[in-house]
């Protein structure tokens, strides 16, 4: 099958899923059901595209296929922030801090965090991506330990508030937030589009890229900014989806073997939306909300990750 046909097929699959998602078992209250499903659909599309976009960029600049930006500590700082709020305000959380404020602070915090990390590693002139990753991971573990400590001593009823943030859910969408997030994400995507073509060269490695005349350091800074914007906003919007990035990028490399990132990012976006939509559909109609879409995706994505490592014979 030609690449072109495959892309069209994936697109058709997405359209079919969208129709299924919106139209399945609608009942008689179309006025009630449809707008809510449409909001969820919009959120899924926004989140899917940002996760795909940021993961592809991240994997290309770190030159490997099994990491996602999520491991750099963004998710654990988000959870820590939510835990601290609930720890302080308890069941009055929703009265004290509105959803919009919460969103705003969470995004600011994650951006600040990535800026600090960046300064810490790249500030001294010596660049090593792996240091950045490992230090992100350590800080992530540290934040996780702190959150765990607070989560244990929190009242179980209040813990359920945190649980709502720990697992992605598209069910409690707030239209204002969605609009805000979409504006930021689409803005970032459009701005980032100018830099996507350079990724084809960066994929050759740092030395080649510099030899071929790219301003490597400046570009990496841009990419890091794009990644941190996309990851912060999508995490603050729906919560952490750690393994979605790995799942969709590797499916993309598998299905559409191309080295042109312009094609790659958009195909990956399509696949991410398909995965999220299928997951959400299963959660709603098969599991009857007994689990959440992030758990399903992490489960499937995780198994796929092990499979990837076991079958890979190349250097990764």
């Amino acid at each position, binding site marked *: 099958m030609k690449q072109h046909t495959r892309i069209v097929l994936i697109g058709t699959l997405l359209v079919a899923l969208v129709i299924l998602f919106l139209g399945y078992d609608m009942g008689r209250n179309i006025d009630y059901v449809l707008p809510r499903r449409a909001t969820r659909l919009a959120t899924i599309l926004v989140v899917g595209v940002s996760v795909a976009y940021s993961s592809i960029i991240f994997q290309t600049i770190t030159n490997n296929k099994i990491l996602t930006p999520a491991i750099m500590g963004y998710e654990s700082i988000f959870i820590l922030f939510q835990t601290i709020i609930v720890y302080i305000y308890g069941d009055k959380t929703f009265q004290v801090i509105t959803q919009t404020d919460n969103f705003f602070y969470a995004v600011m915090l994650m951006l600040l965090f990535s800026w600090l990390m960046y300064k810490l590693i790249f500030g001294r002139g010596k660049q090593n991506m792996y240091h950045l990753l490992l230090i992100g991971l350590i800080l992530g*573990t540290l934040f996780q330990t702190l959150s765990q400590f607070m989560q244990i001593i929190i009242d179980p009823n209040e813990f359920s508030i945190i649980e709502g943030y720990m697992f992605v859910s598209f069910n409690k969408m707030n239209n204002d937030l969605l609009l805000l997030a979409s504006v930021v994400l689409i803005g970032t995507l459009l701005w980032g589009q100018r830099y996507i073509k350079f990724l084809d060269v960066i994929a050759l490695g740092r030395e080649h890229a510099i030899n071929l005349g790219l301003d490597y350091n400046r570009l990496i800074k841009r990419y890091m900014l794009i990644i941190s914007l996309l990851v912060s906003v999508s995490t603050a919007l729906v919560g952490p989806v750690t393994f979605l990035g790995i799942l969709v990028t590797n499916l993309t490399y598998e299905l559409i073997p191309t080295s042109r990132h312009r094609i790659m990012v958009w195909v990956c976006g399509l696949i991410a939306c398909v995965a999220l939509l299928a997951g959400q559909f299963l959660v709603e109609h098969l599991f009857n909300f007994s689990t959440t879409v992030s758990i399903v995706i992490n489960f499937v994505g995780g198994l796929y990750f092990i499979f990837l490592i076991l079958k890979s014979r190349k250097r990764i």
Partner: protein
Amino acid sequence: MRFLFVILLLLLAIVSLFTGVKEISISEIFRLSDEQLLIFTISRIPRTATLILAGAGISIVGFIMQQITQNKFVSPTTAGSLEAAKMGILFSLLLIPQESLIYKMLFALCFTFGASLLFMYMVRRIRARSTVFIPLIGIMFGGILGAISTFFAYKHNIVQNVQGWLMGDFSAVLQGQYETIYFILPAVLLSYYYADRFTIVGMGESFSKNLGLSYLSVVNIGLFAVSLTVSVTIVTVGAIPFLGLIVPNLASMIYGDNLRKTLPYTALLGAIFLLSCDILGRILIYPYEIPIGLMVGIIGGIVFFFLILKRTR
């Protein structure tokens, strides 16, 4: 030097015995009231013994893991072992809730051993570009195991409980509930007996085969010791992050990689480190306690941070 460490350890052990909400001063040691004696036998002695055993055990197996994988950044925290043990306990709670602690430990042991074998297999299959890469894979691997556990924990509404086991805490170590920790002793003896062979394994597969070593069986014995120690500590006290990472690294920086020589120091350093963290956690917000998982997590995280900067330079 070793003598100094032993004295330090003894001192800390004594401090640990006399630190707690119930005042017992050292001068009273020979005329304890019945109540004070009870506190000693039920809580203080088990707690101190557990601290020493867990500290020494986890540090030793951390060293062995680093030898086997030939990577200084691998430890139970960064190879998914903790997550695997947690998963084992989760399944034992779901499948055999009425059975005793020993069975839960066996469950955890099987899961940890399986996960260690799988991780070893992955480490040998991939040829990573950077040493830092292996622990990254290990942590991702742990994340997957965690995701699978969460899938079931969420279904049965015990996510908060699961978080609870993960946090190492010595305050619940009481007589009658902590004895499983003594299973660390066989693991420690095993490690000591095989110390020379682990040193050779640390030089690589072909090298050890050249020297006539049965590489695979030594690796498996090592992994078994690791799994036993990790699952025992998880079941009795919970997870202690970073301990198996920083103590062996410090020991190997000072004393080198000859295990036979370095193991006693590693064990002593580990016990001293854990005891001091626990005593600190008990004093800082007296009469309450900071769980050891948090104390070690913070201190260990900071130490590890500097280790990376130093080791990778």
